[in-house]
């Protein structure tokens, strides 16, 4: 019994969070009125497995809440209750609450019990109201009487529930003969019950056979227990958690005498009626547990009445989303279906370190193989031909191995997309807009690291589209559009990159307004004429916002610059296409992985450097006459109407070059941080994909260098970081 369960915690949390994501997706896809039974089932299973896990690990609050949730879901699953908009809102809220609880438990922080208790009470109310037609007229009265119970319940977690009226639980525990064989220990159950309050145990030994025929491994006893405690039903249940299938169990609450106020007893009786109507078998997991009294009743009796108002306000505050009338919700059926289909694949959980180790080793192999090929070319003789063909075979296999190992780290972008249906739905409700979310290309795969880092920028862009892009329904109708705006998320592969597009059919970017704002802030001269591209560039300026008023959704002008910085850090770029009145498109282009970069090798003196292809605009050779000197120091040249500074890499890095005259070498026009420079190098070598290795592991950060890579001959080449390089160049120019 002393098994250390802590080692399983992390996988419990991981799986629970994943399951909650799935539950959320399923909820969003749930049709009000005519729910898909399979979907309800899958939602039920999530609640059930979290309850089981939480019970096992002793997370009592979580187990208690999920138990209530499960009860409600069971009603829905069996068709005894219909799925209404209100219920689905509450269920979504439950997902949030469970997430918050699990997070708190995981971090070993205190759980916000008030919120949990409020929602738990709401759920219980729904079950109580929906359990039978007979209960319907009584419902308002019940609500009034039991409302304070939620508050009382919350407090009960801290141990106080009304005080003097100590209630009693009468428990009939009839063990099946197999109880002991299954590893259950009645003594342990009793001692855990004893922790809840004063416990009296009476064993019934009638069934015990004569000594000769006793099988020591079988259980012949039944017990009658009496527990004096204010504890919740769930706590009593928890003690029998493991034994539930191996015994016949009756748990009854016996109220503490007739001392309760009669006023409170009356509505309680009303609530009890529908419960009797409900079938006695509650949950599949505990088939023989007979529900004798639901929690609202027990709490209602114990708690005083006047707190009703405060409890319901708290409850309203906890559910703002449910308060307003719900406009048409975002359509999220498609992704939910896809997610359901995706869940069928069998998979194993592997830590990311193991995969990275594997990738590293394969990287080594590739280098070794390249060295061998190099060697093979120099060999001659009869064996050499065989050797070379073997090497070719090796090379092919290596490439395949490398690709499949890289794919292990890849995940479909639906992991990031899946958060949007919920977000769009909530935002649309809050802003009073009608929005349909379309998602395509969710199965497009990209590196896990990229995936994790692209989430926030995408959230920001989608939020912007909803807040600034899509107009209010009446405005849309006036403009001759459908009142429902469309936000379209799309992902696809585009030549070794992945393009993620956020498209809306809203108002588009208002260039004149952006310009006016920029002029008023002095970012743009009064008479400057800007291209569309340059105007779009303005919205990436820190602190820039044209929103007339700041909402809690967006408009503070923080964000677009962060979005762009994040995208750039991933080695990607963001483009905007927009038409006033028709909508806008934000296109993010990202590398598939961070571990590999497409690079152009350049040589300077005896050194080889890798310039990331994403930074390169163009490469060209300069004629001496096209170079101008600025104030006798810096050199600039004209490139497509701009004057770009020339940065001599050999000077910057202190290397002895082969070419010092500009026309003898080459200029690589490269950009970083939105600035362009002409990088002067000796020559271009070739393009190749290189594996990025950290310089910091053993050395430290180097300005202008993003990392290093190992070339085919085993030597090291540095990968340039253009943003850093431009900063360094600017710094030395100023210092010179």
């Amino acid at each position, binding site marked *: 019994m002393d098994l250390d369960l802590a080692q399983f915690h992390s996988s419990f949390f991981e799986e629970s969070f994943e399951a909650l994501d799935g539950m959320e997706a399923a909820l969003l896809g749930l049709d009000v009125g005519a729910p898909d039974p399979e979907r309800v089932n899958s939602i039920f299973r999530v609640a059930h497995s979290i309850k089981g896990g939480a019970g096992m690990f002793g997370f009592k609050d979580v187990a208690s809440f999920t138990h209530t949730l499960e009860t409600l879901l069971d009603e829905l699953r069996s068709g005894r209750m219909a799925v209404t908009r209100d219920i689905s809102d509450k269920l979504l809220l439950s997902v949030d609450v469970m997430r918050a609880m699990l997070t708190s438990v995981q971090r070993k922080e205190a759980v916000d019990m008030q919120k949990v208790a409020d929602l738990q009470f709401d759920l219980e109310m729904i079950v109580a109201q929906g359990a039978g037609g007979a209960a319907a007229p009584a419902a308002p009265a019940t609500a009034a009487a039991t409302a304070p119970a939620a508050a009382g319940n919350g407090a009960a977690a801290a141990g106080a529930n009304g005080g003097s009226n100590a209630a009693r639980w009468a428990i009939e525990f009839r063990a099946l003969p197999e109880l002991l064989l299954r590893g259950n220990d009645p003594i342990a159950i009793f001692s855990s019950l004893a922790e809840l309050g004063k416990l009296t145990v009476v064993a019934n030994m009638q069934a015990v056979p004569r000594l000769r025929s006793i099988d020591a491994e079988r259980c012949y006893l039944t017990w009658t227990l009496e527990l004096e405690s204010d504890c919740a039903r769930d706590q009593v249940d928890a003690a029998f958690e493991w034994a539930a299938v191996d015994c016949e169990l009756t748990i009854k609450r016996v109220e503490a005498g007739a001392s309760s106020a009669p006023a409170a007893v009356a509505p309680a009786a009303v609530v009890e009626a529908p419960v009797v109507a409900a079938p006695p078998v509650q949950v599949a997991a505990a088939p023989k547990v007979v529900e004798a009294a639901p929690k609202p009743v027990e709490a209602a009796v114990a708690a005083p009445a006047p707190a009703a108002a405060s409890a319901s306000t708290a409850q309203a505050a906890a559910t703002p989303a449910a308060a307003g009338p719900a406009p048409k919700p975002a359509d999220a059926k498609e992704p939910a279906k896809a997610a359901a289909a995706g869940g069928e694949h069998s998979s194993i959980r592997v830590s990311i370190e193991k995969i990275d180790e594997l990738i*590293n080793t394969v*990287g*080594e192999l590739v*280098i070794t193989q390249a060295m061998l090929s190099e060697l093979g070319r120099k060999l001659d003789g009869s064996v050499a031909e065989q050797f070379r063909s073997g090497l070719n075979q090796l090379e092919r296999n290596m490439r395949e191995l490398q690709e499949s190992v890289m794919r292990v780290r890849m995940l479909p972008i639906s992991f990031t997309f899946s958060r949007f249906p919920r977000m769009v739905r909530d935002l649309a409700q809050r802003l009073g807009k009608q929005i349909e979310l379309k998602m395509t290309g969710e199965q497009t795969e990209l590196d896990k690291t990229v995936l994790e880092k692209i989430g926030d920028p995408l959230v920001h862009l989608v939020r912007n589209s909803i807040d600034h892009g899509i107009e209010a329904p009446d405005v849309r109708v006036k403009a001759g559009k459908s009142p429902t705006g469309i936000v379209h998320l799309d992902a696809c592969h585009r030549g070794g990159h992945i393009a993620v597009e956020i498209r809306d059919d809203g108002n588009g970017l208002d260039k004149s307004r952006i310009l006016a704002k920029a002029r008023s802030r002095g970012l743009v001269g009064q008479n400057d004429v800007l291209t569309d591209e340059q105007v779009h560039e303005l919205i990436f300026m820190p602190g820039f916002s044209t929103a007339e008023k700041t909402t809690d959704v967006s408009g503070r002008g923080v964000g677009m610059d962060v979005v762009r910085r994040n995208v*750039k*850090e*991933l*080695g990607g770029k963001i483009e905007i296409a927009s038409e006033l009145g028709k909508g806008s498109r934000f296109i993010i282009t990202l590398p598939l992985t*961070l571990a590999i970069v497409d690079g152009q090798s350049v040589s300077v003196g005896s*050194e080889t450097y890798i310039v*990331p292809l994403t930074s390169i605009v163009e490469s060209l050779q300069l004629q001496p006459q096209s170079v101008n000197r600025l104030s006798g120091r810096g050199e600039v040249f004209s490139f497509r109407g701009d004057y770009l500074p020339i940065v001599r890499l050999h000077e*910057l*890095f*202190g*290397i002895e070059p082969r070419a010092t005259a500009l026309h003898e070498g080459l200029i690589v026009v490269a950009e*970083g941080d939105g600035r362009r420079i002409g990088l002067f190098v000796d020559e271009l070598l070739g393009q190749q994909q290189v594996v*990025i*290795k*950290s*310089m*910091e*592991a*053993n*050395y*430290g*950060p*180097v*300005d*202008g*260098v*993003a*990392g*290093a890579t*190992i070339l085919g001959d*085993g*030597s*090291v*080449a*540095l990968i340039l*970081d*253009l*943003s*850093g390089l431009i900063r360094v160049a600017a710094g030395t120019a100023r210092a010179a």
Partner: protein
Amino acid sequence: MNDSIKSGLQQVLTFVLGSETYGVDILRVQEIRGWSSVTKIPHAPAHVLGVLNLRGSIVPIVDMRMQFNLERAEYTAVTVIIVLSVQSRKGKRDFGVVVDGVSDVVNVDDSQVKAAPDLGSREATEHIRGLMPVADRMVVLLDIDKLIAGQLPNTSDSEDQASAAAAA
């Protein structure tokens, strides 16, 4: 390690720089390899020659002669790189030192190690764990953690920039 602590005995790898003999704890030695040309690091201190590929990781190479203000020697095929691992504030790091040649592995009793005399400046002696006689020569026992702490760029102050640069 445990044995040497118990008995006060440790094994030291000795190497030659010019006319001096130095020693490092052999448990810190990762490998000994011949000289191969290194890739220069821009803006690095002069004694950091560059980086090498050591079975897939990028390892900086330090010239011990320059570190100890000795006359610079040519790098030839017999020049040796000793790859050492040190504990820094950022965890374990590997780096290579270029030396003239590796001489021997000797057993040293802690009682034989004498403190370095005061040579006027703390810099001169702070990376020296002690002096010890081996045969008829004096071996300078190095504290490589201290030796290397001052050499590699400190990463703690510019962490954000660095990670941004690495991701770009």
